[in-house]
Protein backbone atom coordinates (compact mmCIF):
# COMPACT_ATOMS: atom_id res chain seq x y z
CA UNK A 1 0.00 0.00 0.00
CA UNK A 2 1.42 3.39 -0.86
CA UNK A 3 1.93 5.89 1.87
CA UNK A 4 0.83 8.85 -0.17
CA UNK A 5 -2.71 9.29 -1.21
CA UNK A 6 -4.29 11.72 -3.60
CA UNK A 7 -7.54 13.12 -2.35
CA UNK A 8 -9.93 14.91 -4.66
CA UNK A 9 -9.42 18.62 -4.21
CA UNK A 10 -12.36 20.40 -2.68
CA UNK A 11 -12.91 24.10 -2.93
CA UNK A 12 -10.77 25.86 -0.35
CA UNK A 13 -9.03 22.68 0.77
CA UNK A 14 -5.35 22.09 0.31
CA UNK A 15 -4.95 20.31 -3.00
CA UNK A 16 -2.72 17.37 -2.13
CA UNK A 17 -1.51 16.50 1.32
CA UNK A 18 1.34 14.20 2.14
CA UNK A 19 0.83 11.98 5.12
CA UNK A 20 3.22 12.14 7.96
CA UNK A 21 5.72 9.27 7.90
CA UNK A 22 4.12 6.41 9.80
CA UNK A 23 5.48 4.48 12.74
CA UNK A 24 6.12 0.82 12.07
CA UNK A 25 3.29 -1.58 13.01
CA UNK A 26 5.38 -3.26 15.70
CA UNK A 27 5.80 0.02 17.58
CA UNK A 28 2.12 0.91 17.30
CA UNK A 29 1.07 -2.58 18.33
CA UNK A 30 3.38 -2.56 21.32
CA UNK A 31 1.98 0.82 22.25
CA UNK A 32 -1.50 -0.66 22.09
CA UNK A 33 -0.53 -3.53 24.37
CA UNK A 34 1.15 -1.22 26.88
CA UNK A 35 -1.83 1.12 26.78
CA UNK A 36 -4.20 -1.78 27.39
CA UNK A 37 -2.12 -3.03 30.33
CA UNK A 38 -2.09 0.49 31.76
CA UNK A 39 -5.87 0.64 31.43
CA UNK A 40 -6.21 -2.67 33.30
CA UNK A 41 -3.97 -1.23 36.02
CA UNK A 42 -5.78 2.09 36.31
CA UNK A 43 -9.42 0.96 36.23
CA UNK A 44 -9.29 -0.78 39.62
CA UNK A 45 -6.74 1.64 41.13
CA UNK A 46 -8.99 4.62 40.49
CA UNK A 47 -11.98 2.71 41.83
CA UNK A 48 -13.92 2.75 38.53
CA UNK A 49 -14.28 -1.00 38.88
CA UNK A 50 -14.09 -2.88 42.15
CA UNK A 51 -10.62 -4.31 42.82
CA UNK A 52 -12.34 -7.22 44.51
CA UNK A 53 -13.57 -8.53 41.15
CA UNK A 54 -11.02 -6.88 38.95
CA UNK A 55 -7.55 -6.66 40.47
CA UNK A 56 -4.96 -4.31 38.94
CA UNK A 57 -2.94 -5.77 36.08
CA UNK A 58 0.23 -5.91 38.20
CA UNK A 59 -1.51 -8.21 40.68
CA UNK A 60 -2.73 -10.51 37.92
CA UNK A 61 0.83 -10.75 36.64
CA UNK A 62 2.22 -11.29 40.12
CA UNK A 63 -0.25 -14.13 40.75
CA UNK A 64 0.69 -15.68 37.42
CA UNK A 65 4.43 -15.39 38.07
CA UNK A 66 3.97 -16.90 41.53
CA UNK A 67 2.02 -19.81 40.06
CA UNK A 68 4.65 -20.24 37.35
CA UNK A 69 7.17 -21.00 40.10
CA UNK A 70 5.31 -24.17 41.04
CA UNK A 71 5.50 -27.65 39.49
CA UNK A 72 1.75 -27.88 39.69
CA UNK A 73 1.34 -25.07 37.16
CA UNK A 74 3.66 -26.64 34.61
CA UNK A 75 2.09 -30.07 35.12
CA UNK A 76 -1.31 -28.51 34.36
CA UNK A 77 0.12 -26.77 31.29
CA UNK A 78 1.63 -30.05 30.11
CA UNK A 79 -1.71 -31.83 30.57
CA UNK A 80 -3.57 -29.23 28.53
CA UNK A 81 -0.95 -29.24 25.78
CA UNK A 82 -0.93 -33.03 25.77
CA UNK A 83 -4.71 -33.29 25.39
CA UNK A 84 -4.55 -30.65 22.66
CA UNK A 85 -1.74 -32.37 20.79
CA UNK A 86 -3.05 -35.93 20.93
CA UNK A 87 -6.59 -34.84 20.10
CA UNK A 88 -5.51 -32.66 17.19
CA UNK A 89 -3.24 -35.45 15.94
CA UNK A 90 -6.07 -38.00 15.88
CA UNK A 91 -8.41 -35.48 14.24
CA UNK A 92 -5.78 -34.67 11.60
CA UNK A 93 -5.07 -38.26 10.64
CA UNK A 94 -8.76 -39.20 10.57
CA UNK A 95 -9.89 -35.95 8.93
CA UNK A 96 -7.29 -35.93 6.17
CA UNK A 97 -7.58 -39.67 5.47
CA UNK A 98 -11.37 -39.75 5.31
CA UNK A 99 -11.49 -36.36 3.60
CA UNK A 100 -9.24 -37.51 0.75
CA UNK A 101 -11.28 -40.69 0.38
CA UNK A 102 -14.72 -39.09 0.53
CA UNK A 103 -13.67 -36.09 -1.54
CA UNK A 104 -12.30 -38.13 -4.41
CA UNK A 105 -15.08 -40.72 -4.69
CA UNK A 106 -18.17 -39.00 -6.06
CA UNK A 107 -20.58 -41.72 -4.94
CA UNK A 108 -19.22 -41.75 -1.40
CA UNK A 109 -19.50 -38.00 -1.20
CA UNK A 110 -23.15 -38.02 -2.22
CA UNK A 111 -24.00 -40.76 0.25
CA UNK A 112 -22.24 -39.16 3.21
CA UNK A 113 -23.06 -35.47 2.59
CA UNK A 114 -26.30 -35.38 4.57
CA UNK A 115 -24.85 -37.33 7.51
CA UNK A 116 -21.80 -35.05 7.68
CA UNK A 117 -24.00 -31.98 7.47
CA UNK A 118 -26.02 -33.31 10.38
CA UNK A 119 -23.17 -34.41 12.66
CA UNK A 120 -20.85 -31.45 12.03
CA UNK A 121 -22.88 -28.73 13.76
CA UNK A 122 -23.65 -30.92 16.80
CA UNK A 123 -21.92 -28.94 19.55
CA UNK A 124 -19.16 -31.08 21.02
CA UNK A 125 -19.99 -29.86 24.51
CA UNK A 126 -23.32 -31.68 24.19
CA UNK A 127 -21.28 -34.86 24.47
CA UNK A 128 -19.91 -33.92 27.91
CA UNK A 129 -22.45 -35.92 29.97
CA UNK A 130 -22.10 -38.91 27.67
CA UNK A 131 -18.31 -38.77 27.86
CA UNK A 132 -18.44 -38.67 31.65
CA UNK A 133 -20.71 -41.70 31.84
CA UNK A 134 -18.97 -43.83 29.24
CA UNK A 135 -15.32 -42.83 29.67
CA UNK A 136 -15.26 -41.39 33.16
CA UNK A 137 -13.33 -38.33 34.24
CA UNK A 138 -9.91 -37.89 32.67
CA UNK A 139 -7.91 -37.74 29.49
CA UNK A 140 -10.15 -40.03 27.42
CA UNK A 141 -13.22 -37.87 27.94
CA UNK A 142 -11.21 -34.74 27.17
CA UNK A 143 -9.90 -36.35 24.01
CA UNK A 144 -13.40 -37.29 22.86
CA UNK A 145 -14.43 -33.62 23.00
CA UNK A 146 -11.22 -32.32 21.43
CA UNK A 147 -11.30 -34.84 18.58
CA UNK A 148 -15.01 -34.38 17.90
CA UNK A 149 -14.69 -30.60 17.70
CA UNK A 150 -11.61 -30.43 15.48
CA UNK A 151 -12.29 -33.48 13.27
CA UNK A 152 -15.22 -31.91 11.40
CA UNK A 153 -13.36 -28.65 10.78
CA UNK A 154 -10.56 -30.58 9.11
CA UNK A 155 -12.74 -33.12 7.28
CA UNK A 156 -14.92 -30.45 5.67
CA UNK A 157 -11.94 -28.42 4.49
CA UNK A 158 -10.24 -31.48 2.98
CA UNK A 159 -13.42 -32.52 1.13
CA UNK A 160 -13.81 -28.98 -0.25
CA UNK A 161 -10.15 -28.94 -1.21
CA UNK A 162 -10.23 -32.22 -3.10
CA UNK A 163 -13.26 -31.04 -5.07
CA UNK A 164 -11.45 -27.87 -6.06
CA UNK A 165 -9.12 -29.69 -8.50
CA UNK A 166 -8.85 -27.71 -11.72
CA UNK A 167 -10.76 -29.52 -14.51
CA UNK A 168 -7.96 -28.86 -17.04
CA UNK A 169 -5.34 -30.28 -14.67
CA UNK A 170 -7.57 -33.30 -14.09
CA UNK A 171 -7.94 -33.91 -17.83
CA UNK A 172 -4.21 -33.45 -18.31
CA UNK A 173 -3.43 -36.00 -15.60
CA UNK A 174 -5.83 -38.39 -17.27
CA UNK A 175 -4.22 -37.89 -20.71
CA UNK A 176 -0.83 -38.65 -19.24
CA UNK A 177 -2.23 -41.81 -17.63
CA UNK A 178 -1.18 -40.85 -14.13
CA UNK A 179 -1.80 -43.72 -11.73
CA UNK A 180 -4.01 -43.44 -8.66
CA UNK A 181 -1.18 -42.64 -6.27
CA UNK A 182 0.50 -40.23 -8.66
CA UNK A 183 -2.83 -38.41 -9.02
CA UNK A 184 -3.21 -38.13 -5.27
CA UNK A 185 0.40 -37.04 -4.84
CA UNK A 186 0.76 -34.54 -7.69
CA UNK A 187 -2.76 -33.40 -8.42
CA UNK A 188 -5.16 -33.79 -5.51
CA UNK A 189 -2.87 -33.18 -2.55
CA UNK A 190 -1.34 -29.90 -3.83
CA UNK A 191 -4.82 -28.61 -4.71
CA UNK A 192 -6.22 -29.54 -1.34
CA UNK A 193 -3.24 -28.34 0.69
CA UNK A 194 -4.38 -24.73 1.19
CA UNK A 195 -7.74 -26.02 2.42
CA UNK A 196 -6.02 -28.60 4.63
CA UNK A 197 -3.96 -25.81 6.18
CA UNK A 198 -7.09 -23.75 6.82
CA UNK A 199 -8.56 -26.82 8.49
CA UNK A 200 -5.43 -27.28 10.60
CA UNK A 201 -5.53 -23.65 11.70
CA UNK A 202 -9.23 -23.74 12.64
CA UNK A 203 -8.91 -27.21 14.17
CA UNK A 204 -5.90 -26.24 16.28
CA UNK A 205 -7.77 -23.29 17.77
CA UNK A 206 -10.92 -25.28 18.48
CA UNK A 207 -8.90 -28.15 19.99
CA UNK A 208 -7.35 -25.77 22.52
CA UNK A 209 -10.77 -24.35 23.40
CA UNK A 210 -12.09 -27.82 24.16
CA UNK A 211 -8.92 -28.92 25.98
CA UNK A 212 -9.37 -25.99 28.38
CA UNK A 213 -13.16 -26.34 28.57
CA UNK A 214 -12.94 -29.98 29.63
CA UNK A 215 -10.93 -28.93 32.67
CA UNK A 216 -13.24 -26.03 33.37
CA UNK A 217 -16.36 -28.20 33.63
CA UNK A 218 -14.49 -30.74 35.73
CA UNK A 219 -14.10 -33.71 33.43
CA UNK A 220 -10.40 -33.24 32.69
CA UNK A 221 -7.28 -31.89 34.29
CA UNK A 222 -5.01 -29.08 33.18
CA UNK A 223 -5.31 -25.31 32.98
CA UNK A 224 -9.10 -25.31 32.81
CA UNK A 225 -9.30 -27.24 36.06
CA UNK A 226 -6.80 -24.83 37.65
CA UNK A 227 -8.96 -21.87 36.62
CA UNK A 228 -12.07 -23.50 38.10
CA UNK A 229 -10.16 -24.29 41.30
CA UNK A 230 -8.81 -20.76 41.63
CA UNK A 231 -12.30 -19.40 41.13
CA UNK A 232 -13.91 -21.65 43.72
CA UNK A 233 -11.19 -20.78 46.25
CA UNK A 234 -11.76 -17.11 45.46
CA UNK A 235 -8.17 -16.48 44.31
CA UNK A 236 -9.34 -13.75 41.93
CA UNK A 237 -5.95 -12.44 40.71
CA UNK A 238 -4.90 -16.01 39.95
CA UNK A 239 -8.06 -16.60 37.88
CA UNK A 240 -7.11 -13.60 35.75
CA UNK A 241 -3.47 -14.65 35.59
CA UNK A 242 -4.37 -18.14 34.39
CA UNK A 243 -6.82 -16.80 31.80
CA UNK A 244 -4.08 -14.48 30.50
CA UNK A 245 -1.77 -17.48 30.29
CA UNK A 246 -4.27 -19.59 28.32
CA UNK A 247 -4.67 -16.58 26.02
CA UNK A 248 -0.90 -16.51 25.47
CA UNK A 249 -1.00 -20.23 24.78
CA UNK A 250 -3.73 -19.55 22.23
CA UNK A 251 -1.60 -16.85 20.60
CA UNK A 252 1.31 -19.31 20.32
CA UNK A 253 -0.99 -21.92 18.74
CA UNK A 254 -2.36 -19.38 16.24
CA UNK A 255 1.08 -18.04 15.33
CA UNK A 256 2.49 -21.54 14.91
CA UNK A 257 -0.44 -22.59 12.71
CA UNK A 258 -0.03 -19.48 10.55
CA UNK A 259 3.72 -19.99 10.27
CA UNK A 260 3.13 -23.59 9.20
CA UNK A 261 0.58 -22.40 6.67
CA UNK A 262 3.01 -19.88 5.20
CA UNK A 263 5.81 -22.42 5.01
CA UNK A 264 3.81 -25.18 3.36
CA UNK A 265 2.09 -22.77 0.99
CA UNK A 266 5.12 -20.69 0.06
CA UNK A 267 4.69 -21.94 -3.52
CA UNK A 268 1.02 -21.06 -3.66
CA UNK A 269 0.35 -17.89 -5.60
CA UNK A 270 -2.95 -16.79 -4.22
CA UNK A 271 -3.99 -16.61 -0.62
CA UNK A 272 -7.37 -18.20 -0.27
CA UNK A 273 -10.09 -16.70 1.86
CA UNK A 274 -11.64 -18.85 4.55
CA UNK A 275 -15.07 -18.55 3.04
CA UNK A 276 -16.99 -21.57 1.85
CA UNK A 277 -15.84 -23.69 4.77
Amino acid at each position, binding site marked *: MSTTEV*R*PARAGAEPVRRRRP*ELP*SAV*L*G*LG*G*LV*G*FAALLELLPRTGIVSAE*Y*FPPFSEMVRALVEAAGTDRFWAATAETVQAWGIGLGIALVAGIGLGLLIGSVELLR*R*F*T*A*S*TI*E*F*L*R*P*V*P*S*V*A*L*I*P*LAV*LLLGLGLQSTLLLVVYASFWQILIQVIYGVQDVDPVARETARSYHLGRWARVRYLIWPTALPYVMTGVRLGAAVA*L*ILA*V*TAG*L*VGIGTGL*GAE*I*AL*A*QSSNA*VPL*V*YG*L*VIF*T*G*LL*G*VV*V*NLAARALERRTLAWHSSVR*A*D*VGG
Partner: protein
Amino acid sequence: MNPVLRWGRTLGFALTLPVILVTLWWVWSADSTNYYAPPLQTILTTFGDVWFSERLRADVLPSVTRLAIGYTGAVVVGVGLGVLLGANRTLRRVTEPVLEFFRAIPPPALIPILFLFAGIGDTAKVIVIVSGAVWPVLLNTVEGVRAVDDVLSDTSRSYGITGLARLRHLVLPAASPQIVAGMRQALSISIILMVISEMFASTNGLGFSVIQFQRSFAIPEMWSGILLLGLLGFVLSLLFQLFERRSLRWYHGLRRSQRGEN
Protein backbone atom coordinates in the same frame (compact mmCIF):
# COMPACT_ATOMS: atom_id res chain seq x y z
CA MET B 1 -33.38 -36.87 -16.81
CA ASN B 2 -36.86 -35.86 -15.75
CA PRO B 3 -37.06 -33.70 -12.65
CA VAL B 4 -39.07 -36.18 -10.56
CA LEU B 5 -36.43 -38.83 -11.08
CA ARG B 6 -33.67 -36.37 -10.27
CA TRP B 7 -35.39 -35.35 -7.06
CA GLY B 8 -35.83 -38.96 -6.17
CA ARG B 9 -32.14 -39.62 -6.68
CA THR B 10 -31.09 -36.63 -4.59
CA LEU B 11 -33.46 -37.68 -1.83
CA GLY B 12 -32.20 -41.25 -2.05
CA PHE B 13 -28.59 -40.13 -1.66
CA ALA B 14 -29.50 -37.85 1.24
CA LEU B 15 -31.56 -40.41 3.15
CA THR B 16 -29.85 -43.75 2.60
CA LEU B 17 -26.98 -43.46 5.07
CA PRO B 18 -28.96 -41.73 7.85
CA VAL B 19 -31.69 -44.37 7.56
CA ILE B 20 -29.13 -47.18 7.71
CA LEU B 21 -27.41 -45.64 10.76
CA VAL B 22 -30.64 -44.99 12.66
CA THR B 23 -31.89 -48.51 11.86
CA LEU B 24 -28.64 -50.04 13.08
CA TRP B 25 -28.85 -48.02 16.29
CA TRP B 26 -32.49 -49.04 16.73
CA VAL B 27 -31.81 -52.75 16.17
CA TRP B 28 -28.62 -52.95 18.15
CA SER B 29 -29.98 -51.09 21.16
CA ALA B 30 -33.44 -52.73 20.99
CA ASP B 31 -32.78 -55.25 23.75
CA SER B 32 -29.83 -53.46 25.25
CA THR B 33 -29.28 -54.25 28.88
CA ASN B 34 -26.46 -51.74 29.12
CA TYR B 35 -27.67 -49.19 31.63
CA TYR B 36 -25.85 -46.34 29.90
CA ALA B 37 -27.04 -47.18 26.39
CA PRO B 38 -30.80 -47.59 26.56
CA PRO B 39 -32.83 -48.67 23.50
CA LEU B 40 -33.34 -45.91 20.94
CA GLN B 41 -37.07 -46.45 21.29
CA THR B 42 -36.90 -45.56 24.97
CA ILE B 43 -34.84 -42.48 24.19
CA LEU B 44 -37.32 -41.26 21.59
CA THR B 45 -40.33 -41.85 23.84
CA THR B 46 -38.53 -40.00 26.62
CA PHE B 47 -37.70 -37.21 24.19
CA GLY B 48 -41.37 -36.49 23.65
CA ASP B 49 -42.23 -36.74 27.34
CA VAL B 50 -39.35 -34.58 28.53
CA TRP B 51 -39.15 -31.80 25.98
CA PHE B 52 -42.72 -31.32 24.77
CA SER B 53 -43.83 -30.38 28.24
CA GLU B 54 -43.21 -27.67 30.80
CA ARG B 55 -39.51 -27.86 29.98
CA LEU B 56 -40.02 -26.34 26.56
CA ARG B 57 -40.90 -23.07 28.27
CA ALA B 58 -38.78 -23.45 31.38
CA ASP B 59 -35.49 -24.66 29.87
CA VAL B 60 -35.43 -24.56 26.07
CA LEU B 61 -36.86 -21.07 25.71
CA PRO B 62 -34.44 -19.34 28.15
CA SER B 63 -31.47 -21.05 26.47
CA VAL B 64 -32.50 -20.11 22.97
CA THR B 65 -33.37 -16.56 24.01
CA ARG B 66 -29.97 -16.02 25.62
CA LEU B 67 -28.32 -17.51 22.57
CA ALA B 68 -30.26 -15.25 20.20
CA ILE B 69 -29.57 -12.07 22.17
CA GLY B 70 -25.92 -12.92 22.75
CA TYR B 71 -25.26 -13.87 19.15
CA THR B 72 -27.02 -10.80 17.78
CA GLY B 73 -25.07 -8.63 20.21
CA ALA B 74 -21.79 -10.19 19.11
CA VAL B 75 -22.57 -9.59 15.44
CA VAL B 76 -23.66 -5.98 15.96
CA VAL B 77 -20.69 -5.09 18.15
CA GLY B 78 -18.26 -7.02 15.95
CA VAL B 79 -19.37 -5.44 12.68
CA GLY B 80 -19.63 -1.97 14.22
CA LEU B 81 -16.19 -1.97 15.79
CA GLY B 82 -14.78 -3.86 12.82
CA VAL B 83 -15.87 -1.17 10.34
CA LEU B 84 -14.41 1.49 12.59
CA LEU B 85 -11.07 -0.28 12.97
CA GLY B 86 -10.94 -1.42 9.36
CA ALA B 87 -11.33 2.12 8.10
CA ASN B 88 -8.68 3.63 10.33
CA ARG B 89 -5.21 2.39 9.59
CA THR B 90 -3.47 3.74 12.68
CA LEU B 91 -6.19 2.65 15.09
CA ARG B 92 -6.11 -0.79 13.50
CA ARG B 93 -2.39 -1.18 13.93
CA VAL B 94 -2.50 -0.01 17.54
CA THR B 95 -5.28 -2.41 18.54
CA GLU B 96 -4.33 -5.44 16.46
CA PRO B 97 -2.15 -7.31 19.00
CA VAL B 98 -4.66 -6.72 21.80
CA LEU B 99 -7.51 -8.05 19.65
CA GLU B 100 -5.47 -11.05 18.52
CA PHE B 101 -4.83 -11.82 22.16
CA PHE B 102 -8.52 -11.68 23.01
CA ARG B 103 -9.39 -13.89 20.08
CA ALA B 104 -6.81 -16.44 21.27
CA ILE B 105 -8.28 -16.78 24.78
CA PRO B 106 -10.41 -19.94 24.79
CA PRO B 107 -13.84 -18.27 25.28
CA PRO B 108 -15.10 -20.61 28.03
CA ALA B 109 -12.13 -19.49 30.17
CA LEU B 110 -13.82 -16.09 30.40
CA ILE B 111 -16.85 -17.61 32.11
CA PRO B 112 -15.42 -17.63 35.67
CA ILE B 113 -14.29 -14.01 35.27
CA LEU B 114 -17.57 -12.75 33.86
CA PHE B 115 -19.55 -14.60 36.51
CA LEU B 116 -17.45 -12.80 39.15
CA PHE B 117 -18.63 -9.53 37.67
CA ALA B 118 -22.16 -10.14 36.66
CA GLY B 119 -23.37 -12.93 38.92
CA ILE B 120 -24.90 -16.00 37.32
CA GLY B 121 -28.08 -14.48 35.94
CA ASP B 122 -29.31 -14.14 32.37
CA THR B 123 -27.32 -10.97 31.77
CA ALA B 124 -24.09 -12.70 32.72
CA LYS B 125 -24.76 -15.54 30.31
CA VAL B 126 -25.57 -13.15 27.48
CA ILE B 127 -22.35 -11.25 28.23
CA VAL B 128 -20.44 -14.54 28.15
CA ILE B 129 -21.80 -15.33 24.69
CA VAL B 130 -21.12 -11.83 23.36
CA SER B 131 -17.60 -11.68 24.76
CA GLY B 132 -16.67 -15.04 23.27
CA ALA B 133 -18.38 -14.77 19.89
CA VAL B 134 -17.51 -11.17 19.06
CA TRP B 135 -13.87 -11.80 18.08
CA PRO B 136 -14.21 -13.79 14.87
CA VAL B 137 -16.82 -11.30 13.62
CA LEU B 138 -14.72 -8.31 14.63
CA LEU B 139 -11.43 -9.51 13.16
CA ASN B 140 -13.03 -10.78 9.96
CA THR B 141 -14.85 -7.48 9.49
CA VAL B 142 -11.56 -5.60 9.93
CA GLU B 143 -9.95 -7.87 7.31
CA GLY B 144 -12.87 -7.45 4.92
CA VAL B 145 -13.10 -3.68 5.26
CA ARG B 146 -9.36 -3.34 4.83
CA ALA B 147 -9.36 -5.41 1.66
CA VAL B 148 -12.01 -3.33 -0.17
CA ASP B 149 -10.95 -3.15 -3.81
CA ASP B 150 -8.81 -0.04 -4.40
CA VAL B 151 -10.34 0.78 -7.75
CA LEU B 152 -13.89 0.57 -6.39
CA SER B 153 -12.86 2.65 -3.43
CA ASP B 154 -11.29 5.33 -5.60
CA THR B 155 -14.23 5.29 -8.00
CA SER B 156 -16.78 5.82 -5.28
CA ARG B 157 -14.62 8.59 -3.87
CA SER B 158 -14.45 10.42 -7.17
CA TYR B 159 -18.22 10.18 -7.43
CA GLY B 160 -18.43 11.81 -4.05
CA ILE B 161 -19.96 8.75 -2.38
CA THR B 162 -19.01 9.15 1.25
CA GLY B 163 -20.29 8.55 4.75
CA LEU B 164 -23.28 6.29 5.21
CA ALA B 165 -23.87 5.77 1.49
CA ARG B 166 -20.30 4.56 1.13
CA LEU B 167 -20.75 2.22 4.08
CA ARG B 168 -24.05 0.90 2.79
CA HIS B 169 -23.16 0.47 -0.88
CA LEU B 170 -19.42 -0.17 -0.88
CA VAL B 171 -17.81 -1.15 2.41
CA LEU B 172 -20.37 -3.57 3.86
CA PRO B 173 -21.11 -5.45 0.62
CA ALA B 174 -17.40 -5.73 -0.17
CA ALA B 175 -16.62 -7.03 3.29
CA SER B 176 -19.69 -9.28 3.52
CA PRO B 177 -18.06 -12.59 2.48
CA GLN B 178 -15.51 -12.15 5.26
CA ILE B 179 -18.14 -10.95 7.74
CA VAL B 180 -20.36 -13.96 7.02
CA ALA B 181 -17.40 -16.32 7.46
CA GLY B 182 -16.79 -14.71 10.87
CA MET B 183 -20.48 -14.99 11.73
CA ARG B 184 -20.38 -18.70 10.99
CA GLN B 185 -17.50 -19.24 13.42
CA ALA B 186 -19.27 -17.04 15.96
CA LEU B 187 -22.42 -19.15 15.75
CA SER B 188 -20.72 -22.36 16.82
CA ILE B 189 -18.83 -20.54 19.59
CA SER B 190 -22.13 -19.05 20.79
CA ILE B 191 -23.73 -22.49 21.06
CA ILE B 192 -20.74 -23.85 22.97
CA LEU B 193 -20.88 -20.91 25.37
CA MET B 194 -24.62 -21.19 25.84
CA VAL B 195 -24.22 -24.82 26.92
CA ILE B 196 -21.06 -24.34 29.00
CA SER B 197 -22.30 -21.28 30.85
CA GLU B 198 -25.38 -23.26 31.87
CA MET B 199 -23.33 -26.26 32.91
CA PHE B 200 -21.04 -24.05 34.95
CA ALA B 201 -23.66 -22.30 37.01
CA SER B 202 -27.34 -22.03 36.30
CA THR B 203 -30.84 -22.83 37.45
CA ASN B 204 -32.37 -23.48 34.05
CA GLY B 205 -31.50 -24.07 30.43
CA LEU B 206 -30.52 -26.92 28.15
CA GLY B 207 -26.96 -27.34 29.38
CA PHE B 208 -28.17 -27.27 32.98
CA SER B 209 -30.87 -29.90 32.35
CA VAL B 210 -28.54 -32.28 30.52
CA ILE B 211 -25.97 -32.16 33.32
CA GLN B 212 -28.73 -32.59 35.93
CA PHE B 213 -29.97 -35.68 34.11
CA GLN B 214 -26.46 -37.09 33.99
CA ARG B 215 -25.79 -36.43 37.68
CA SER B 216 -29.08 -38.00 38.72
CA PHE B 217 -28.47 -40.94 36.37
CA ALA B 218 -31.62 -40.23 34.37
CA ILE B 219 -29.99 -41.84 31.37
CA PRO B 220 -32.74 -41.82 28.70
CA GLU B 221 -33.49 -38.20 29.63
CA MET B 222 -29.82 -37.33 29.26
CA TRP B 223 -29.67 -38.97 25.83
CA SER B 224 -32.76 -37.07 24.76
CA GLY B 225 -31.12 -33.83 25.89
CA ILE B 226 -27.99 -34.58 23.86
CA LEU B 227 -30.23 -35.34 20.90
CA LEU B 228 -32.01 -32.02 21.35
CA LEU B 229 -28.71 -30.09 21.55
CA GLY B 230 -27.57 -31.84 18.38
CA LEU B 231 -30.82 -30.97 16.61
CA LEU B 232 -30.52 -27.36 17.76
CA GLY B 233 -27.01 -27.12 16.33
CA PHE B 234 -28.15 -28.70 13.08
CA VAL B 235 -31.21 -26.47 12.65
CA LEU B 236 -29.24 -23.30 13.40
CA SER B 237 -26.55 -24.26 10.93
CA LEU B 238 -29.27 -24.94 8.33
CA LEU B 239 -30.80 -21.51 8.94
CA PHE B 240 -27.37 -19.96 8.67
CA GLN B 241 -26.75 -21.65 5.32
CA LEU B 242 -30.04 -20.25 4.01
CA PHE B 243 -29.05 -16.80 5.20
CA GLU B 244 -25.61 -17.13 3.66
CA ARG B 245 -26.95 -18.35 0.33
CA ARG B 246 -29.32 -15.40 0.14
CA SER B 247 -26.96 -12.69 1.28
CA LEU B 248 -23.92 -13.89 -0.66
CA ARG B 249 -25.62 -15.06 -3.84
CA TRP B 250 -23.75 -12.45 -5.89
CA TYR B 251 -20.44 -13.54 -4.40
CA HIS B 252 -20.82 -17.26 -5.04
CA GLY B 253 -21.96 -16.45 -8.59
CA LEU B 254 -18.88 -14.29 -9.07
CA ARG B 255 -16.61 -17.05 -7.79
CA ARG B 256 -18.21 -19.62 -10.07
CA SER B 257 -17.84 -17.43 -13.13
CA GLN B 258 -14.25 -16.62 -12.17
CA ARG B 259 -13.53 -20.32 -12.08
CA GLY B 260 -15.12 -20.72 -15.48
CA GLU B 261 -17.91 -22.97 -14.25
CA ASN B 262 -20.65 -20.51 -14.95
